[in-house]
């Protein structure tokens, strides 16, 4: 399938138009959910770090450091990819799957359009393009969530929190997570697209394919998380 997906487009202009549509529907429409989830998770992590570091021998700044590193290294890349697999992945499978069972894909093929390329390539490019931005947004709002929640819960002051998130900062962590997000973006778009494209039957099968796609996307994300962490971080 991938060979057909990356085949030369019939009309580049139409693919680009389709790409902008996908960036809007898959990416821009996901920004709000990313912001909300990140604010809450950032806040929750700050309180949990404060709880586990309640011993006075630990400096308060560790709370900010722990929140920052967890967000950058794991939450905003991997956990967010898992969440997006549910949102974007099921959307891709059900959209392409419905097109398959209602003969819209056959219709494209008979017109002489490379249906795999036309339907899947813009989605893959859009998700790979948007994922690093979602990662950055998630880190920013996660840290913001911690900064608001920490003082409100009375576990840390804003100056201590800010000092913590600036302490022992390794920019490579961001590079590492940006690389991960590119891989995860590809997985989140391509695996569900595959399941949708090859679905057979009716609405029931589209639903089953959607579930399978999300489960397998999640497994692949975790597998690649392990491989990339081993390759890039140790």
């Amino acid at each position, binding site marked *: 399938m991938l060979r057909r997906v990356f085949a030369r487009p*019939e009309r580049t202009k*139409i693919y680009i138009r389709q790409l902008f549509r996908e960036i809007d529907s898959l990416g821009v429409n996901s920004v709000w959910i990313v912001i909300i989830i990140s604010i809450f998770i950032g806040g929750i992590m700050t309180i949990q770090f404060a709880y586990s570091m309640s011993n006075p021998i630990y400096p308060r700044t560790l709370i900010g450091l722990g929140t920052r590193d967890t967000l950058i290294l794991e939450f905003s890349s991997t956990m967010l990819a898992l969440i997006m697999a549910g949102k974007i992945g099921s959307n891709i499978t059900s959209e392409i799957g419905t097109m398959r069972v*209602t003969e*819209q894909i*056959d*219709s494209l093929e*008979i*017109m*002489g359009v490379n249906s795999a390329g036309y339907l899947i390539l813009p989605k893959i490019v859009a998700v790979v393009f948007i994922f690093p931005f979602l990662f950055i947004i998630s880190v920013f709002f996660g840290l913001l969530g911690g900064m608001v929640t920490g003082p409100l819960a009375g576990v840390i002051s804003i100056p201590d929190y800010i000092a913590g998130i600036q302490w022992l900062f390794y920019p490579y962590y961001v590079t590492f997570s940006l690389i991960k997000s590119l891989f995860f973006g590809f997985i989140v778009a391509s695996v569900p697209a595959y399941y949708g494209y090859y679905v057979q039957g009716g609405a029931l099968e589209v639903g089953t394919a959607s579930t399978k796609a999300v489960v397998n996307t999640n497994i692949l994300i975790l597998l690649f998380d392990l491989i990339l962490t081993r390759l890039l971080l140790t």
Partner: protein
Amino acid sequence: MIEVKHITKSFDEVKVLNDISTRFEPGITNLIIGRSGSGKTVLLKSILGLYDIDQGEIWYNDRNLVELNEKERKKIRREIGMVFQGGALFDSFSVAANVRFPLDMFTTMSAKEKQKRVEFCLDHVEIQHTAHKLFPSEISGGMKKRVAIARAISLNPKYLFCDEPNSGLDPETATVIDKLIQNLTKEFHMTTIINTHDMNSVIEIGESVLFIAKGEVGWQGTHKEILHSGNNKLNDFIFANKLYAQLREEGDKPEQKQNT
């Protein structure tokens, strides 16, 4: 003209098409009829090149589809218009955008020329201007079929394929769609192949009828000859359809259907 010669097609050693040969002429409506599971859809998809046949030849005028590579097949496909059973309109596009899609994809027309062509095609299938901006989910089944026909003729095809074009439509709308396809076939001198099991369509527009029974050519003729064919299998098929048509004329009476 489309001519098929000695087509054979099997799925998992089950022969679905067996030595089928026939010719579909341009300018007339060519119907393929048969019971469900007789092989008529497989025949249609084989002619379209969606299924690779085991043996035989499929000629689009002077080009044998079987011997062509994917690139050359794509060229032929651009000369084909197809109307699917459910319409197969793109859900995310409006009525006008659906008809414009093949023009965007395969022509270098200006936006104005495309707009003119879209209006021409939609006018031909009698879709009002107010419906151009509606989405497929907002229009009726009959309108969907009309838009699908408009999209199919947008690139001025030489060949028009219709798979059960009036399934799910009331008898009156079904006749309108049948007549529309027939008129377009004559106007644009297309080679039109219609896959159907509706006897009303056969009687209305069956200028050439191919009856498929168990994957073989059961009978071939015109709608004028069909009632006097003397072919038992064909008569069984006609009788079943007449009965269905009679029930439909009487209205929706499930008790009567069960008794019969």
